[in-house]
Structures are given as structure tokens and as C-alpha cells.
């Protein structure tokens, strides 16, 4: 069992929290894990990604080879397409629809969505809307993690536990909101499978 995941977004969108939750759940499930992150200059509003690898056997490379990712999980629609060369033949692309338009030549969002729809396996979630609905607009990253859980080979309970553990440092209320966000994302994508 090997699950390679590319998590994508724009610097500051909280992709490392997503990676931390999956990583924690993987370790609790007794799996091996490697996760490479982007620090430094590109964090300033640039394109960022994290390569997350989970396996029941030891993992060699910190980087995912091209065409091997079972999941591209993106919190921004254009960023989801940037990592297509890493997506495996039967892999899934799960993305948020809310664009981050911090560049002057940002394309028409419809064009991006059309590209995403042309892929065999995709899930498009308006995570920002779902996050607002549960009263926690800042939890859209956890909505996206929830939407991706059906494609991560880890028990959903373990992921819930990890989210709870990660956010309980910031108070029970915040942990509860993030769990709500996770569930909302999960039911949104599960209903479409």
C-alpha cells in the first residue's frame, strides 16, 4: 500500500496544516511517512506544494516521481493544474474553487474549471462557501482535507483524531469547528462518488 499525495496551494493558505493532519494520522496508523515542504522565498504569495508519501513499507525518496500521485489535493483551482504531471493514470484531483488572484494575468476562472472538468477523476468543492456555512471561514483547508479523505488510504477516524489533536491546542471551540469543516468536506465529495 503506497499513497503519494501532492498538496497544492498559495503561500499562506494552510497546506502544511493539511499535511500535518494526514501525517499524524498515518503515523498513528503505524504507517511510514515522508513529507517535503516549501519554506523560504516562495512562501511569499507564491505557488507552494507539499509532497506527502505514505506507505506500509519504508519510503526512499522524499519526492514523488512523475505520474505516481494518487491524489492532487489543492486549496486553489489554478494551482491544482500545476501538478498534473505528477498525477497517476487513475489518480484523483480534488480542488477548491475559490481563486487567489494575486497576479495580474490570472486566467478566467471558468477556463480553469473547464480544464479540471476535462480530467477523468476530479472533485470540485466550493470549500470557502462550505466553511462559511458552518461559521468558520478560515477552515476551508479542513473542508478540502475532508473532501479528499475518500482517496487517502487511512481510516477516517484516524484523520478526525489528528485534526482534533492538531487544533485542540488552540481551544476546544476551534477544534470543533475544524472537525465540522472536515465532515462537511467529506460528505460533499462522498455524495458525488
Amino acid at each position, binding site marked *: 500500500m503506497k499513497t503519494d499525495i501532492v498538496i497544492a496551494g498559495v503561500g499562506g493558505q494552510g497546506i502544511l496544516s493539511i499535511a500535518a493532519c494526514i501525517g*499524524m494520522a498515518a*503515523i498513528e496508523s503505524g504507517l511510514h*511517512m515522508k513529507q517535503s515542504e516549501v519554506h523560504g522565498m516562495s512562501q511569499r504569495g507564491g505557488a507552494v506544494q507539499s509532497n506527502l508519501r505514505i506507505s506500509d513499507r519504508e*519510503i526512499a*525518496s*522524499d519526492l514523488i516521481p512523475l505520474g505516481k*500521485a494518487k491524489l492532487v489535493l489543492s486549496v486553489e483551482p489554478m494551482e491544482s493544474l500545476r501538478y498534473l504531471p505528477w498525477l497517476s*493514470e487513475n489518480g484523483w484531483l480534488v480542488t477548491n474553487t475559490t481563486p487567489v488572484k494575486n497576479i495580474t494575468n490570472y486566467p478566467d476562472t471558468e477556463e480553469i474549471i473547464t480544464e479540471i472538468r476535462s480530467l477523468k477523476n476530479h472533485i470540485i468543492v466550493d470549500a470557502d462557501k462550505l466553511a462559511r456555512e458552518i461559521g468558520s471561514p478560515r477552515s476551508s483547508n479542513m473542508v478540502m482535507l475532508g473532501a479528499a479523505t475518500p482517496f487517502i488510504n487511512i481510516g477516517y477516524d484516524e484523520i478526525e483524531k489528528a485534526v482534533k489533536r492538531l487544533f485542540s491546542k488552540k481551544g476546544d471551540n476551534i477544534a470543533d469547528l475544524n472537525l465540522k469543516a472536515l465532515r462537511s468536506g467529506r460528505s460533499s465529495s462522498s455524495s458525488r462518488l
Partner: protein
Amino acid sequence: MEKLMLLGDEAVAKAGMDAGMSGIYAYPGTPSTEIMEYVQNSERASAEGIFCQWSANEKTAMEAALGMSYTGKRAMVCMKHVGLNVAADPFMNSAITGVNGGFLVIVADDPSMHSSQNEQDSRYYGKFAMVPVLEPSNQQESYDMVFYGFELSEKYRIPVMVRLTTRLSHSRSSVKPEASREQKKILLPSDPRQFVLLPAIARNRYKYLLSVQTDLERESEISSSFNKLLDGKDKSVGFIACGLAYNYLMEIMNDHEMDNPVLKISQYPLPSEKIEIITANCNKVVVIEEGYPLVEEMLRGFPVVNEKIEGRLDGTLPRDGELNPDHVAKALGIAVNEGPPVPPVVKNRPPSFCAGCGHIDMFNALIQAMERYGPGRVFSDIGCYTLGALPPYDAINSCVDMGASVTMAKGAADAGLHPSVCVIGDSTFTHSGMTGLLDAVNDISPITVLIGDNCTTGMTGGQESSATGRLEDICIGLGVVPDHIKLINPLKKHHGENVDTIIKELEYKGVSVIIARRECIQVTMRRKKQEKTYGNNRNQPSRKI
């Protein structure tokens, strides 16, 4: 003991504390910053009195660490690859003085220049100084090598380098820690002149360094887990893989059930016996190394055309940039099944200033003030403000090394360019800009120094800046005429007056300093959030000891 999920950087930091280091010295620099930060954020550092403050630059950090080693205690100094250029003087000479307490030089290289101005390979510095270099391939080795490195350093009484690269520094995996060791007690060097590099003493010290080279190579030969030779049935090709590159090779070999001889190199000087075995037993050898082709060049010898050796020099692997499993697969003749191409609708998203950043207003004022003089007159430096080179600003014309803006502006001014301007950050100024300013003052070189003072070391994540609140005093102390030290507040509402101030100083035919002071927006936001959580009572977790 419980396994921990650690970045390569964090594994080094944790190992340092566990191995009984008494102090860590560093100047922030991607990808090395998190080493010091991990120690600073640990409760242990304060409880056990482990010194962990940022230094003004890598040279002062290296010298302070050497001083701690002089007392017999274990010390670590950390930096990014280009930081070692700054610290090259004490580094080269510490190999001659030798050390007393264990002395580790941790250098994080940045192949592919994710956050750097070059991709130099620090292993050359290790070879140059003739000290052992340890090059971990994973997070566990990063941890283990700190323990081993301290012991090696104390056994031969010389510095030991640990070389990381970005991908390992910033990649997380599980690490199993060892039982903690006690810090060493002060025990001064038995030879009171060991560190006195007068020529007569230095010659003897150098002979000592030369004399241990054979022993160091033996250590590389017998350290079976770091340098290991794995046999394989298919001798048509063997592989020598250094540090992190070993992982990419294993990824491909495991996936394709290949069975070739492999020599993993993680400790230098090179183990010549093991290299002889693999080169003699295989028809050809592919050398896979992250960084420059150091090992490959040594194996090729002269002339470099050597049909038996393949690597970065003959195009088997790319000549530049960071390696990845796909490069290695291609070098092994294995097809890569790439996913769909990136559609043209995807645009580049380069880094940019944060919304509300003071540098934006500083550059807008500077651009307007410079309009009458035309382009090509602004030298700049290393930091967030280097983004001023990108559109829509296109405001700066150089970024070379820490502090070079001041001295390049001076040289251009000496050549007759007026106005000649430099833009430098507060932390970069205290790192290496002050001495250049002294040169300009002494020579009355007409330059305008614009210090973008965001009261922090911003680019690397907001570490303390050496001289926050004291920049004016420093400039006065260096001899800048107080009337030509101006303070501006880079805010939109002050744009007009800021432009006027800059124009006045541009016209001045002497050294003037304009300090554009506004706290980094990231630091402001973080502080406000912390105040909200912990209140203003300062009962918040302290990062200082």
C-alpha cells in the same frame, strides 16, 4: 523511545541537544533557519542553559562557536551554503587550529536555488579545509550524524561538517532519538598555544591536519552504515550515490527490481577501497550526487574523458539543479510515465510582497524620486526587498551577496555615477553593510543608502534583527553626518514627503542614509494574534533563554 516526526533541520537540532551541545550559533538563512529555531522553541534550551541566540552574521557565529569549543564544550554553528562564504575565514583556519570540545559546522546547500543566489556545493569547502564531511541521506541519519560528528570531532580534535540540502532540511519523517548526554564541563586546551596561528605554530598545526588524513579516510571506510557497499548480480553498471541521491536511486531500483552494486556515500574523505571495489567489479559506474560533480570529477581524474564513469559531466544527469527520482530514472534508462501536461491556462505565480508590506511604499517613493535620473542606479541586496526587481516595480539593478549593495553603490559613485543608490534591509545592513558604509564615509563617496528597516529578519520568517532601534546610532558612529540621516515612515499617506526627502538626499554629494522604518506586516500580525491569545501581560512562551 518514542519516534518523532522531524524535518531534517529539526533532527539536527534535536540531536545537538541530546548529544550535550552547550551552544548553537547561526544567522538565519533558508534552508538552515529551522535548526536554530527548533532549539530556541524547545523548553530544554532554557532549562539546560543551552546558548541559542542569533549572531550578526555567519562569521561571528562561527568564531563564537569556536570559542565555545575552545573551552572544551560542544558547539554547533549553522548556516546556508552562501553563509559559509562569509564564514570561510574562521572555517578554514579552524581546521588548522583544531578544536577542543566537539565542533560541528552545519551547512545547508540549496541546489536549484529555491531561495538563494547560487547553488554552490559545500562539500568542496570540506575538502578544501581537509575536514570530514557527513552528508545524511535521511532524517534519522541527520540525527545520528550529529552524535557521530561530535565524537569524530573530539577524537581527532578538528571541525566536522554536516552537509544538508534543501530537500532534506525541509522534509519530515520519523526519527528515533537516543538517550541524552550531559553537557561537557569547561576544560581548557592542554596546549595553551593550540589556537595561536603564528606561522611557526600554524605550520605544525597544518602538519598535524595532514597527518590525520589517512585516519579520516579509514573512518570513512569503516563507518559501515554511513558508507556502505551493497553487492548486486548485474555488474553491467554500478552506482555511487551520495547523500540524498541515494534515496532517489533506491526508489527507482526497488520499483524496478534492479540488482546492481551500489556504493552509498555519506562520509568524506571518500573511502577509496570501497570505490576501487565497485569500479573494478562493474563495467561502468554512474555517479549520482546532489550538487556539483565532486565525486565524479575525482573518479574521472584527468583527462576527464573516462568511458567508465557517467554522471553530471557527460549529460547522463543534468549538469545543474536539484536531482529528483525522475532524473535518476532517466539516467538508468527507465521510462518515466508522466501525467497530463500542465495546461497553458496555468500562469506562473512568483513570490510577491505581502499585502500591506512597508517595502511596497518604500519602493513607490524611491521609484518616483528616481524618475528624473533614469534607470540603472539602484543597487540592492539579499532579502524580501529583492522582490523589488520584479514587475511592477523593476526598481533595483543588483543583488549579489549580503551587504554588496552599499559597496557596489560606492564603487559606482567612485566611478562618477551620481546619484548612486543602495537599498538594503536592516538585518542585512548589520550582517555586512556597516563596514561598507564606513568605507564610503572615509572616502566621502556620494551614495544614498536606503535602509528598508522592517525591524526583523523578514525573508527567513521574522527572526530578531541585530540592531533594532539602534540603526541611527550605528550610522552616526560610523561617521555619517547626523543631518543626512533621515527617518521616513513608508506609508501611502506619507508618500509625498517621503519622495521629497529622498530627492533631497539624492542631490547631496556625500554619504546619506534614509531609514524607511515600518515593522514587517507578518511580525505585526503575529504579535497581534499572540496578544489576543495571551494578552499583553507578557506571560507568553518566551523564545529567549
